[in-house]
């Protein structure tokens, strides 16, 4: 008898969990679709050569620009590695490329509206601003350590 009640409660709990998840995803769906549509449009409009044209030779300005471009870009990290590799081949400094690949995945300006709605405006803004600044710091520390160790 007790086992039956426990089983029923468990089943109800499972159903509630599934319903709650479905509702959560449904609420996020328009933002997710809108974000993917926007990413698709930007990926087509902004040519890949644009990323290599903007950089100068100054490591500090480059790391700032790298971080800035990485922030407004979106997509799989795999793309950032390929872009980063191409940037290195073009003679762009490692600090700038590091800032670029780090901010690519840690800052999400395109996804910001989704983050606003789902996680809160204040948190989303603070997270992205700190991630932007930290991507420059990560780049400087990483390249410094690499030069010291190797």
């Amino acid at each position, binding site marked *: 008898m007790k086992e039956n009640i426990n089983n029923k409660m468990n089943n109800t709990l499972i159903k509630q969990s599934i319903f709650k998840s479905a509702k*959560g995803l449904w*609420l996020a769906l328009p933002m997710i679709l809108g974000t*993917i*549509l926007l990413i698709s*449009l930007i990926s087509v409009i902004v040519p890949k050569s644009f990323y290599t044209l903007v950089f100068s030779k100054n490591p500090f300005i480059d790391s700032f620009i790298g971080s800035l471009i990485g922030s407004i870009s979106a997509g799989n990290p795999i793309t950032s590695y390929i872009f980063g590799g191409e940037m290195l081949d073009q003679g762009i400094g490692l600090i700038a490329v590091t800032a670029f690949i780090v901010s690519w995945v840690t800052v999400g300006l395109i996804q910001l509206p989704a983050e606003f*709605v*789902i996680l809160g405006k204040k948190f989303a803004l603070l997270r992205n601003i700190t*991630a932007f600044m930290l991507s420059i710091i990560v780049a400087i520390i*990483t390249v410094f350590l*690499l030069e010291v160790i190797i």
Partner: protein
Amino acid sequence: MKFKNKLKQLPGAWYFLGTIIFIYILFLIFNYETYLDSLEFFNQIILKIIPIFIIVFILMSLSNYLITPKFIIKHLKNKGLKKWFFVILGGILSSGPIYMWYPFLADLKNKGLNYGLIACFLYNRAIKIPLLPLAIIYFSWQYILILVIVMMIISIIQGLIINKLMEVKKNENCNSI
């Protein structure tokens, strides 16, 4: 009148989607090629993320079933650096686009996970184990190893900064991780 009222009830997210669709319609009229290329890109992403969407749904259901505020408090409370370790690990092991994880994280937040840990989770999503071989090919293993370690440490620093800026009180931390 009824239509206007219904429009007012729509969440902002639908307006965002509507605006993007409107932009696509403009491209359909004035620049058909860009419209087609963008749609093709969109299709590629959608096809790629459908399996991830299913995984996220299963994980969300599991977390709704298993992860209650009590569960979080039990497993992450008073563990000091360990709770950060678990969040870092979760961030690294999670896959798919970042925005796919927002509903999951919002759910965890409602169950007591603080903002700093959410930020730490999102930061560590930048580290993707399956992609590391490609990164090593482009940048050398020494560079990637240093970068990964630096990013893990920085993710904790970002979490602490976020907690400070979001004014998470110390006793709130003790009670809700």
